[in-house]
Structure formats: structure tokens, C-alpha cells
């Protein structure tokens, strides 16, 4: 899922300094699952902003709502009209939601409440880790399912760098060297012949370096 983190409150308060009527808009997609932008977090943020503005002597009127998703057009439809009632809509979706509102609801002043961080997994309650970089050219079949693009600090394609010590990354001693893990796993499974294959120089165009990406599936088009 997409992992996000709420911006610092003072940054959000600065963003809405001229706003008198605000809609805090959550999303029940990824950001709800990673406890950053669902119903509960909408309530906390709205309450904190009201308190902050009251303390500053400039009370603010805040409505709270959460959409099923902010990245599908049908769910955004009501916002085209409703959004006009507010000086701003503070989206608690990932950057996709904010962009989609900006595209689909041109009369709505949409602002981001979150920093969108990465594609990650939930390690335990309250802890998430990056597992995928969305590079567009998956090599997991060659690496025992462990991603060297997302999980190697240098995104190396052919084995660990010289900084890997005792199975740990030189960038962060608490971070396992993913190439160390890939080697251990493939050797343990007697698939070490995969390690002798040299991966070609990576084409980064599918990862977004060739411009914004778009996917079309003809059979689903209207």
C-alpha cells in the first residue's frame, strides 16, 4: 500500500492561515490502512486545527468527511459542487488524491495534509517499511522475491557494494543489506546460478524517468 505521514501541524496551520471555512477530507484507501488519513485521523487533525486556530485567536470552521477513495472519479463527483463551499479542502489522501482533486475539481482549492512516503508493508502495529519502488520493471523472480531496487540503498542490480558488513548496510547499521539476504536465500535454495547471471544496465524509463506514466487496458476502456 501507499504509506504516508501527516505534515507537521505548524506547516498545515501556515498553509491554511487565510482559510476561514475548511473541509478536512479523508480517504478510506491506503492512507486509512496505514493510520494516516482515514476517518479517525480526520477527526484528530480537524480537532487539532480548531484548537490551534482558537489559541491563535482566529477560530476556524471545519467540516469533516471521508471518501471511499480519492483516486477514483466517481467518488470525487460530489466534491465538484460541495467543495466550492469551502475556502480550501485539506486532503488527507496520498499525493494521487490531491492531484486527482486538482484535475477533476478545478474550482476547489485543494491542499495536502500528508507527505506521501513510499510503497510499503505493515511490519507490526505502527511500523511500516518500503518494499517496492514502483520501478516498472520487476526483477523479483531473479532475486528470491527481495527487491534490490527498493531495498538496496543504492538500488544495485548485481550484488552488494563494498560497504556491506556483517549483513548490514553501510548507510544504516540497522538496515539489513538486501543483497546479502538475496545471496543467502538463493544459495540456500540452490538457485545460486541466478547470482551468476549479470543483470543488464537498468532502463529507468519505466520507473518514471521517461516522464509521467500511464497504463491503458483496451478491454476495460468505456
Amino acid at each position, binding site marked *: 500500500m501507499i504509506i504516508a505521514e501527516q505534515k*507537521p*501541524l*505548524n506547516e498545515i*496551520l501556515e498553509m491554511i492561515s487565510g482559510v476561514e471555512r475548511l473541509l478536512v477530507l479523508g480517504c478510506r484507501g491506503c492512507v486509512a490502512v496505514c493510520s494516516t488519513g482515514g476517518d*479517525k485521523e480526520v*477527526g*484528530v487533525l480537524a*480537532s*487539532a486545527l*480548531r*484548537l*490551534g486556530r*482558537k*489559541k491563535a485567536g482566529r477560530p476556524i470552521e471545519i467540516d469533516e468527511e471521508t471518501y471511499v477513495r480519492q483516486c477514483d472519479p466517481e467518488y470525487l463527483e460530489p466534491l465538484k459542487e460541495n467543495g466550492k463551499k469551502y475556502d480550501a479542502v485539506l486532503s488527507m489522501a496520498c499525493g494521487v488524491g490531491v492531484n486527482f482533486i486538482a484535475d477533476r475539481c478545478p474550482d476547489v482549492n485543494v491542499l495536502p495534509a500528508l507527505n506521501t512516503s513510499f510503497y510499503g508493508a505493515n511490519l507490526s502495529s505502527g511500523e511500516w517499511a518500503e518494499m517496492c519502488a514502483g520501478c516498472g520493471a520487476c526483477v523479483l523472480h531473479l532475486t528470491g522475491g527481495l527487491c534490490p531496487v527498493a531495498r538496496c540503498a543504492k538500488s544495485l542490480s548485481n550484488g552488494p557494494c563494498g560497504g556491506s558488513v556483517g549483513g548490514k548496510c553501510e548507510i544504516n547499521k540497522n538496515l539489513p543489506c538486501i543483497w546479502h539476504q538475496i545471496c543467502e536465500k538463493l544459495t540456500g535454495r540452490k538457485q545460486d546460478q541466478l547470482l551468476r547471471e549479470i543483470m543488464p544496465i537498468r532502463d529507468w524509463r519505466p520507473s518514471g524517468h521517461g516522464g509521467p506514466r500511464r497504463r491503458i487496458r483496451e478491454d476495460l476502456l468505456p
Partner: protein
Amino acid sequence: MSEHMNNNHQITKSPNHQIGRIVAFCCNYTASVATDTLREAGLIPESLDVKKLPCTGRIEVHALLDAFEQGAEAVFVAGCRADECHNLSGSRRAEKRVGYTKKLLKELGIEPDRIEMFFVHCGETQPIVEAVREMTARISKLEQLHST
């Protein structure tokens, strides 16, 4: 006329100093029992607004912030001692949420000392009296959060 607590934990009236509203979220099994007794005995001030919960683990950050938004000068949560919680980890969860609320208050420029977690043995009244005294003492040193 507002209320003060003297050294014997009795409430006294003072015309000169207004005690702000304090909201206490209390576990129904432990602290709420104590607050009922204390209120009957006049040992906790009228300005203490006690909200009973089936377990303090039920408390949400939103509710804690909401108490401040609704006019509280201080908030505290009184739950079971960590090893006595009916729901095993309820009061520990509450402690974490109080900690998170402190962080949010700090970000808003509001003193994090305005909120605190207290652990109370079932039926004990003294820790509740002390919690009220502690929070009263804290807010008496701070500027009022809400204009009267």
C-alpha cells in the same frame, strides 16, 4: 467563586483565583469508583468533569483533543495499574495515546503538561486526589488556555 484544594485535600473557595475546568477520563472498574466516593465526600472540585470509560484503552486521541477544544484547561486519564488492567493492555494503550496527544499539543504551542496519565489501583482514592491536585497545580502556573 472558584474552588481550591487545601493540604488536607478539602476543597476551599477562593474569590481570587479561578480554577480552570479539568476533564478526567476514568476507567469504570477502578478510577471511576474512586471519583464517585471522592465527589460524595467533597474531596474533588466541582470543576472536575469525570468521564467514565469501560476501559481507558478505549480512549482516542480525538476525544482528548476534543476535551481541550470544549474548554478544558487540563485533561488527565486515570486507568488501572499496568499489571492490573482487565483488558491486559488497556491502560498502557491509553498512556501511549496521552503521549501522542502531548506531542500534538507541543506542535500547537500548547503546554504538553496540560495532559497526563495516572495509574490507579482499584478502589484507591488517594491517587485520584493527588492527580487532581497535580493538574490543578500545573494549570495554576500556566496562562489560561481559554478566555472566560
